[in-house]
């Protein structure tokens, strides 16, 4: 059993957010979409645990994109 961490866990949140936006600078929407997809895959592999991934998938779709 694993639980998706939903309490703050990123050590320097502003730095991460900044880096995330910077990653996409100068990219077309298609290029950005591919970079995001790679990011999801890399992080998903890091997590590994299917239960945690499933909770993340569910959380990403809720509540307002439902």
């Amino acid at each position, binding site marked *: 059993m694993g639980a998706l961490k939903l309490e703050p866990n990123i050590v320097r949140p502003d730095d991460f957010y900044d880096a995330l936006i910077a990653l996409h600078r100068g990219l077309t929407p*298609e290029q950005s*979409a*591919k970079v995001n*997809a*790679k990011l*999801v*895959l*890399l992080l998903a*592999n890091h997590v590994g645990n299917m239960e945690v991934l499933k909770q993340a998938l569910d959380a990403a779709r809720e509540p307002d994109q439902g």
Partner: protein
Amino acid sequence: MIIVGAGPVGLAMALDWARRGREVLVLAAGDSLSEGSRAICFAKRTLEICDRLGCGAPVVDKGVSWNVGKVFRDERMLYEFNLLPEPGHERPAFVNLQQTTLEHFQLEALARTGADLRRNNRVTGVVQIRDRVALTIQCPDGEYTLSCDWLIACDGAGSPVRKMLGLKSEGQVFQDRFLIADVKMHGAAAATFRTERWFWFDPPFHRNQSVLLHKQADDVWRIDFQLGWQADPDEEKKPERVIQRIQAMLGKGVEFSLEWVSVYTFQCRRMERFVHGRVIFAGDAAHQVSPFGARGANSGIQDADNLGWKLDLILRGLAPVELLESYNAERVEAADENILNSTRSTDFITPKSDVSRTFRDATLELAAQYPFARKLVNSGRLSVPTRYADSPLNTADAEAWAPGTPGPGSPATDAPVLAGGKPGWLLRHLRGEFTVAVFAAGGEVPTELADALRYLGSLPIVVRTVFVTREGSRRTRPTHGCATLTAWLLRAMRRTARQSTCSVRTSTLPRGGGDCPRPGWGRRCAARAGPKLPSPQ
């Protein structure tokens, strides 16, 4: 019983049936082997079944064995895989062979039996009246009628029998087209390309689409070109166009000729149930998959393997008709697994939406660099037999299985053994419909187990016993193989056998008459995963 269809599934059914000494009648619409070029990859399980049916050796000898697959994107190889991780199996993971050649070997084996195969006999009408099935058949001399107790419909994806009974096979058609070309290489070319499965995503010679290259027997190569939904099948089939595509792929100097060309659209679908009264569906008639994963003929032949002994017991009055429910349950489960796997492959090869394509391309780019992403690349998950985890024939184990051991409902795996001092293979000894494999380290069997085996041997449904001992074992780890006394009940090569070198002694214990008590399995001799034997009447 009548079999409709002489494709690989109808023929496997006929062979199984003939082997049981039964009268076999096969009706087939066509006048020759299967039209065109279809299946090429036959999996180990199919080969093991063919061994049982008497056509395994020629299939393996003529077939091209292969283990290595390579996946390319653009100009570079992303990764390669090797399919035979475990040594100690008699048969390879796969052989490649033209479907017509497989059918040819099946027919040769069938010709050695008294089976009646009527070509050019097309079934044009089917009616079920209570426990009989009435058929109308069109043959060159006109029309005639026949009736039977059981009809096995192996009449392919378009199944006229299914349609005539108003039944459906439902699922999805993939919006894509594939050009399938069989190409014979000549001269030096035949030696240039390896006996490996090569799959390209977006290669320079066929942009934005996928291509598969795979060797068959007699220097014939299968090439699949993904064409996209917009492609015009008639245009694409024109030889000059096909030759152009192949030259772009192989290079100008390569000498080849076209053996066969067709354009296919693939689908994944199945019937809700495979048993309808006295009509039983098997193979493509019951379920159809896209070919990525080579699951069509392979699973259809397993349908026949599953059905044969069950129907035989029913006809001999040794099992109730309800036994067929287990055919339905097990083969529906297998069909769902095959459909799931080939749908996933098809979705990877032909992404259905922009975001799906984005993830697909991202996966391929990452796969060039990182091993983790290679596990996500899906150019076909190749056919393996389904474990019937929830089969109604499974019974609870007397003891828990050791962790990592395949559980009840698993196919038996092969192992090298010595039998009468000669090296051989375990599966060859587990061919009987019901076999108890007794793993007895030193060869001695406690009285209570011997009594139980004697009782099983005395039943109307004969249960053979195979003793697997450790004599001559090369294995040193005592925790594996036959270190502890264990009894497994197998039917039709299902359940598991462990990997080790052991001696095999086949024997049918002397019949002990009817006075043996029903066995209460002792502490040490655990009956693993036995089917509920239909109780003798």
